[in-house]
């Protein structure tokens, strides 16, 4: 069994490759269907000497035939080379940015994810166990409202109330100015604990609260709905009544029902993570959070196609890894999964 699971994980891991390839191909060709070329896009209509243009083209690898570029870049990725930036500051490895920005996004994602799942579970179970009552209706409304909250707006409202009006929490950045933190993982909360820097810990948590709540609440709506519906479904099944008929205490029965209702939620988590990353772009922009999202938006302003390409492919890889983890968790939780 254990060996089977190990091999399953391996094979499932290999299956990320086509997904990333497809997205890479899509993005690669998308970014090249525009008239002119990426370098032209950056320099615009500025009159620059032909030799300098030539040099720029070479630096970006754009003077080679398309298919050579395609495979060159692919080869580069395998060595962690995501190309260089084309716009200010020019010629810096994209990977340097990614390695610096990604931990910030990951930290935000982890907290937002936790908030969303916890909120979704609580509200969903509440709705299902009080099915048909006012509580149920409110939970369903909560689900729809949370789902349709517009992240920047919701973020700004929280900034306005808790930051600007009440002065409780900071509204931008990851740390208060003047707080020093020696980074190890790039996840500030973790780093503060690892280095025993309590001032930084408090500061980083305070900075996390509003962005994580914003993103977490918006994402929780989908969980509320799914948990509620699954739970209602499971609670109406025979095995639940058969537990009751055997004298199993209600508390335990509810727990078993939750376990069953949770399995489809695991599948949703994979997809939700993708939505979470999309939402992170908006959240980071709203809260000036120095992550992958603000990096992407930054580069968009410069029309820096190499950097955009690098960032998107990295996102694809990350999404692939998450779906792998989700599948493994699923296989462990559900004995019916065959591998």
């Amino acid at each position: 069994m254990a060996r089977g699971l190990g091999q399953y994980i391996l094979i499932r891991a290999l299956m990320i490759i086509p997904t990333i390839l497809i997205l890479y191909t899509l993005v690669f060709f998308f970014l090249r269907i525009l008239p002119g070329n990426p370098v032209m896009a950056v320099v615009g209509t500025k009159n620059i000497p032909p030799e300098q243009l030539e040099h720029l083209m070479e630096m970006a690898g754009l003077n080679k035939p398309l298919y050579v570029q395609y495979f060159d870049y692919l080869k580069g990725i395998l060595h962690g080379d995501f190309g260089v930036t084309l716009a200010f500051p020019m010629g810096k490895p994209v990977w340097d940015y990614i390695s610096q920005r990604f931990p910030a996004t990951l930290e935000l994602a982890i907290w937002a994810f936790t908030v969303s799942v916890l909120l979704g579970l609580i509200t969903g179970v509440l709705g299902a166990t009080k099915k048909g009552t006012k509580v149920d209706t409110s939970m369903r409304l909560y689900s729809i409202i949370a789902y349709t909250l517009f992240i920047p707006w919701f973020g700004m409202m929280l900034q306005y109330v808790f930051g600007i009006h009440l002065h409780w929490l900071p509204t931008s950045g990851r740390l208060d100015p003047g707080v020093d933190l020696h980074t190890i993982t790039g996840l500030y909360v973790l780093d503060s604990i690892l280095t025993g820097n309590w001032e930084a810990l408090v500061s980083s948590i305070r900075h996390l609260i509003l962005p994580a709540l914003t993103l977490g609440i918006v994402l929780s709506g989908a969980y509320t709905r799914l948990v509620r519906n699954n739970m209602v479904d499971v609670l109406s099944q025979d095995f639940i009544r058969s537990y009751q008929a055997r004298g199993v205490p209600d508390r335990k029965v509810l727990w078993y029902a939750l376990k069953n209702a949770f399995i489809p939620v695991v599948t949703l988590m994979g997809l939700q993570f993708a939505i979470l990353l999309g939402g992170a772009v908006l959240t980071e922009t709203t809260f000036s959070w120095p992550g992958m999202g603000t990096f992407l938006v930054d580069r968009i302003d410069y029309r820096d196609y190499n950097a955009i390409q690098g960032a998107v492919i990295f996102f694809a890889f990350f999404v692939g890894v998450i779906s792998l983890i989700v599948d493994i968790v699923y296989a462990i939780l559900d004995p019916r999964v065959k591998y």
Partner: protein
Amino acid sequence: MLLEVKNLSIYYYTLTGVVKGAEGVSFSIDRGEWVTFVGESGSGKSTVAHAIMNIVPSPGRIVSGEVVFQDRDLLKLSKEELREIRGKEISMIFQDPMTSLDPLRKVGDQVIEVMTVHGIPEEEARERAKELLEKVNLPPDRLDYYPHQLSGGQRQRISIAMAMAFNPKLLIADEPTTALDVIVQDSIMDLIEALKAEGTSIYFVTHDISLAAERSDKIAVMYAGKLVEFGTVEQILENPLHPYTKALIEAVPDLWKEGKVRAIPGYPPDLRNPPSGCRFHPRCPLAKAGLCDAEEPEFEEVEKGHYVACHFPGGWRG
């Protein structure tokens, strides 16, 4: 008297109206007695079974009646008192063995749990679980299986093993063999009979009156939420008094009987809006206008232990 059900009514409050799942049902079961409830889908036979355990699924509600089990009304017990009876004094087996076990837990854990929630230490329960599996003719290693790894028949055996954990006073079997093939059905019936031999009373639900014929002591016939006839096997099968009972017997194909079967004309009624008077009157050959469609017949004892709710019991005999 082990179980006495008095005037039990269960309604389902659905979005499209109130379905009167069972109405005014009264009967009793003696110690060691096997009573089979026969009826078509929607007749209320399973609803009553669920009500005895007080596990009527939502949106159903018990609206009136008493379920007196060993001199205590089960419907008035506290949650904890009821929980102690469930699975220990009264056990239940469900219709669909595919859905009546938790798919995420090993069957062994589920069997053991029946005993631990009623105060038996884990270790002892594990030993007894093995014995129970042997009793239902399953190898003890099946305890380590997940439900999806077992066949329907094997799962139903697991359910019976759980029901046997405490030598219950009453076993409620809700169509336990409907999803199974005849040969497996036969062996499951043998197991239930074995349980009865140890003194357990059986409340058995089936739509197949011939299955009722073979092993039960008494038969209860239900139609459209009403108990229409109740008596010993001989009384019901050899001297049926309700026209529905008679029609039901004649509608079932029988390997050992020559001649045709006869359908009952019409369709079962919609229980949101049941027929007035006797609920069977639109399909009944004896129905008399002004009486059967207006006045509900009383459920009365016509001979010793033989009850019927009909204005013309046995009326076809002239």
